[in-house]
């Protein structure tokens, strides 16, 4: 595919055929080579065909092939003319990352790491189809869908300050009545569970502070101190919402004009488009509540093992599978657009009203977790990202090898032993799961963070290194 170099970290796919806008890839040469290995660029071209897409079909530096949209894809749609596409959000609606800071040093935690991991593994259910510990009534589940993390805090899972450090204050305006009985049935037993695949719960150490002032604002300015990261989403409920609306949209609007049937969509202004959006927000609320409850149990485990959890404050919780209505500058004009982020983190700079007050002066925290054996980054959103990527950046290291190749290439037990030698302990449901998530299966996280930093999509604040991992 023909690519035009714009600068060291930006490449364009010129408009051709039915593309309504060009494609734009944010990547270094090294990451671009990785991206070229699969269908990512073709999928970005496909997304560029969608009605109402503005400026570019964007691809982040950690991108890889998805199903329909590339993972790492960003598409902003004109609210009047454009469409909303469930594939542009993904099946795991509201999948995201939350980071907790602590006042323990790594040296204080290390002697207890195995006990902590065992207890975290026991208290936070993970794996395929594992039910959670909460038995929710239908009415309670409706409340979860309507109020998200605010419901969870109201039930005693955490404190009010947590909400002040959560995207959207942990709750989007949603309509739970648009979530089907089957989705409710799927989601009810799973609230407060991690799930499987690439979802994880990680104990980390602040390895390096890149930006002291911002790190201080995020309370992450002490190198050697411990943080905890949680990565998961809306579980079966979100998956079911996406599946059902995809089917409803294709019945209503067909797919004949689309380059990929998975890009099925509905006009934003249509009843079905609006209904999907409000159901999606309900699933987002489920994901906020899910991570809030998991954090509560994490605090309890630490209190049990370490004596207390007084200083375990939430730094931030941010989703990377969403569609949001936001105001952006398009060709010199302020416009309300619908930004699809499929495996991309919002990275708003200072002064945006969407950023919680706690961070409005400095910009929102952005998390880019790497593979379980390498490291993760905390970054800060920028004004510049609003100009160049509708306020979006990468969301992870991004897979490089397929799961089947990883399993052939790596042995889970050896991977775990190797990690242990580096001082990283891992607790997982299966060895196979560890083999799938082995570090070389992912792209270089330092390179991903560097691209984001250099382009100012989000700027580096701190690097975190793993000490212990619970894998779903």
């Amino acid at each position, binding site marked *: 595919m023909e690519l035009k170099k714009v600068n060291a970290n930006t490449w364009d796919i010129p408009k051709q055929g039915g593309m309504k806008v060009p494609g734009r890839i944010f990547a270094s040469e090294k990451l671009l080579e990785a991206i070229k*290995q*699969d269908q990512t660029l073709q999928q970005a071209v496909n997304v560029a065909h969608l009605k109402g897409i503005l400026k570019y079909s964007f691809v982040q530096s950690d991108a*890889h*092939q*998805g*199903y*329909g949209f590339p*993972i790492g894809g960003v598409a902003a749609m004109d609210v009047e003319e454009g469409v909303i596409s469930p*594939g542009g959000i*993904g*099946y*795991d609606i509201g999948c995201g990352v939350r980071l907790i800071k602590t006042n323990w040093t790594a040296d204080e935690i290390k002697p207890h790491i195995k006990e902590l991991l065992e207890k975290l593994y026991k208290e936070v259910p993970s*794996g*395929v*189809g*594992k039910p959670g510990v909460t038995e929710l009534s239908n009415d309670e589940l409706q409340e979860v869908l309507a109020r998200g993390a605010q419901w969870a805090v109201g039930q005693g899972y955490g404190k009010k300050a947590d909400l002040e450090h959560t995207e959207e204050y942990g709750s989007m305006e949603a309509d739970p009545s648009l979530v089907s009985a*089957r989705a409710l*049935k*799927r989601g009810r*037993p*799973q609230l407060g569970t991690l*799930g*499987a*695949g690439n979802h994880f719960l990680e104990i980390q150490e602040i390895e390096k502070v890149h930006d002291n002032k911002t790190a201080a604002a995020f309370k992450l300015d002490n190198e050697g101190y411990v943080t905890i990261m949680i990565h998961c989403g809306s579980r*079966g409920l979100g*998956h*079911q919402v*996406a*599946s059902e609306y*995809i*089917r409803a949209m*294709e*019945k209503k609007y067909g*797919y004949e004009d689309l380059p*990929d*049937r*998975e890009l*099925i969509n509905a006009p934003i202004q249509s009843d079905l488009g609006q209904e999907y959006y409000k159901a999606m927000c309900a699933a987002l609320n489920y994901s906020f509540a899910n991570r809030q409850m998991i954090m509560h149990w994490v605090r309890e485990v630490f209190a049990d093992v370490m004596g207390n959890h007084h200083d375990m404050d939430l730094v931030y919780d941010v989703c990377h599978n969403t569609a949001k209505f936001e105001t952006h500058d398009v060709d010199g004009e302020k416009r309300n657009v619908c930004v699809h982020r499929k495996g991309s983190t919002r990275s708003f700079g200072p002064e945006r009203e969407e950023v919680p007050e706690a961070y409005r002066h400095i910009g929102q925290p952005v998390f880019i977790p790497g593979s379980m054996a390498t490291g993760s980054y905390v970054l800060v959103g920028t004004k510049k990202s609003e100009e160049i990527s509708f306020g979006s950046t990468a969301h992870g290291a991004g*897979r*490089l*090898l*397929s*799961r*089947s*190749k990883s399993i052939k290439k790596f042995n889970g037990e050896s991977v775990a032993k190797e990690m242990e030698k580096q001082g990283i302990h891992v607790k997982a*449901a*299966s060895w*196979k*799961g560890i083999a*799938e998530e082995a570090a070389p299966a992912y792209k270089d996280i330092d390179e991903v963070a560097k691209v984001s930093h250099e382009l100012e999509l989000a700027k580096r604040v701190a690097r975190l290194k793993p000490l212990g991992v619970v894998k*779903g």
Partner: protein
Amino acid sequence: MKYKFLEHTADVKFQAYGKTLEEAYSNAGEALSAVMTEVDDVKETRSLTVAVQGEDMKSLLYDYLAELIVLVNTENFLLKRVDALKIDRDGVLSLTATLLGDDLDKYKTHDDVKAVTYNEMEIDETPGKCVVQVVLDI
């Protein structure tokens, strides 16, 4: 061969085979289960039925596999084998089948299947060597 897994960067792509489309669809169900567990080890202690309708063969496949995923979460059901799968093409396109399997929580599992996708879905109904191809979101 009943099914084969193919390369896909992050998700799972498979092809399932059969002399008839019914057989290929049945094997696709098994392939989905094989993503979650060692399907050979699963016992047949439970039997459920599935009935779905579609507008075309692809949407029928989508809804049928989506139903198997739902049963994992709502019925704690892990599929071993699909029996007596019938596709009715007269009138409304529909599929019925008997699902044999066991309780999910008795087995070691690895990957969760989040959803079925239409991405790269292909259905080849050549008599004697039917093939269906599916990408699952993991």
